């Protein structure tokens, strides 16, 4: 992915978030404090506004700058986590210096790992990680098997969707919903939903590019 593809994806993500306002918002109203949509929108808008200053950067520099911007813009639980993700990606891209699917799979995994460390959470705790960890794993598998972009994009969108749905029947043990016990069951985690939407958006954009 070039910087311009990354930036296009972020514009798409911004549009997707806005389109799903009521869905994201109601999920966080149900088992959180109702601000997840506002937080995501604030973050996405800040990145859209940075478009011009990002355009001339290398992918890793752009992603790092995005991470820092998200860190100082979103706040809440999702802020430091998403920021860590972008900074983690940037680190691997910088080290590797190429834009192959394998490198991106590694970068994605590194971003997810920083989220896992920062949030002290794992799969099954009803958070965004229920989307991100399976996606990271599937991405590595497929990239290592030299799958083509179309296959990867379709598979990751599906994996994200499955991960998001899996949060429905979980009790939360991390994040704000951890206070709810049984009452969290039956609700999809808002962070899982927004991550699934973002992954789906990027996959769709890349599929169109094919």
């Amino acid at each position, binding site marked *: 992915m070039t910087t311009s593809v990354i930036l296009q994806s972020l514009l798409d993500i911004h549009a997707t978030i806005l389109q799903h306002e009521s869905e994201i*918002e109601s999920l966080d*109203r149900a*088992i*959180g*404090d*109702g*601000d997840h*949509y*506002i*937080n995501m929108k*604030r973050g996405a808008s800040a990145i859209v506004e940075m478009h011009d200053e990002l355009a001339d950067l290398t992918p890793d520099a752009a992603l790092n700058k995005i991470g820092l911007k998200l*860190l*100082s*813009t*979103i*706040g*809440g*639980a*999702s*802020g*430091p*986590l998403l920021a860590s993700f972008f900074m983690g990606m940037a680190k691997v891209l910088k080290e590797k210096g190429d834009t192959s699917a394998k490198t991106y799979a590694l970068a994605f995994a590194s971003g997810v790992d920083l989220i896992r460390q*920062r*949030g002290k959470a794992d799969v099954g705790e009803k958070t965004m990680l229920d989307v991100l960890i399976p996606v990271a794993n599937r991405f590595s598998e497929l990239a290592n098997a030299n799958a083509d972009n179309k296959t990867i994009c379709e598979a990751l969108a599906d994996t994200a969707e499955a991960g998001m749905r899996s949060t429905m029947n979980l009790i939360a*043990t*991390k*994040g*704000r919903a*951890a*206070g*709810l*016990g049984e*009452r969290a069951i039956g609700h999809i985690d808002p962070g899982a939903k927004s991550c699934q939407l973002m992954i789906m958006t990027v996959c769709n954009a890349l599929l169109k590019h094919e």
Partner: protein
Amino acid sequence: MKKFINKVDDVLVESLSGFAAAHSDIVSLHLNPNFLTRKQKALNKVAIISGGGSGHEPLHAGYIGYGMLDAACPGHVFTSPTPDQMLAAAESVHANKGVLFIVKNYAGDVMNFEMAAEMLPIVNGLHIESATVLTSDDCAVINSTYTTGRRGVAGTVIVEKCVGSLAETGADLQSCKLLGDKINQRTASMGVALTSCTVPAAGRPTFDIGDNELEMGVGIHGEPGRKRAQMDEADAITQELVNAILDTLKPVPNSEALLLINGFGATPLMELYLLYNTAANLFKQHGIRITRSLVGNYTTALDMAGASVTLCLLDDEIKQHWDSPVHTAALRWGK
């Protein structure tokens, strides 16, 4: 949504500006990143910094001043502040004895403050030293080491008051942290909501609640609590709050305690004092001696109707630091 606001995006800065102007003798406001400090920088003491999402006023900015906080970092409504705010605040108020962060235990707050602590710069050749007290007094939530754990709610005010007092004596960072942790362990709170709050940017109530329902164990962001129940008499409601606290703290007979009845924003003082009356009597029946009291809106949830009961088991050290002079916008005595 009917609120005294102009544009939703301007609420925070307009409100902070009003706060800073009304209390210009005590605080200074810094914007971009947003933080508030004491008007007069304190020297030779541990700098006490708190912060969190806005919407809990007077927490935390109302507690800046002599005997309590050195700085506060307000996030967006119900959203934890970002590390750049804590960094800027720490650089502004640290006085070479380190920085103590007092953080309510929410995933977002914990992570943002943690990242700030990791990023603290080197000043005079030394990394600004920091420690953190996590408050987690909300006993509506079942505790566990595997989970995010209990939420920090109104008990945070007691921690901020007493730790602020200790810092004023010149105590070192570790002692301040230890006192904060001790108070947190001896404090439990439980809240109940009669209505939801409305986040300005959302424009509608966070949760739906019937005309004859209450939410038992609600959090200060309108997070669902232990259960939805039928509205009941104040005595019955209070009994349930008090029982949750007693189950948590398991105080020995004749314990001395501070009782805080905290309003969530839309519940009038008349009702809060009625709750105080009931709660104090119930604790007394359990052999607890209430020797310190606080009743009012101290840790709010925007315009939520409801209240929480907080009990803090006192010892001589905590009493001394609770009674010591404090001079802030929201708590003032002895000076």
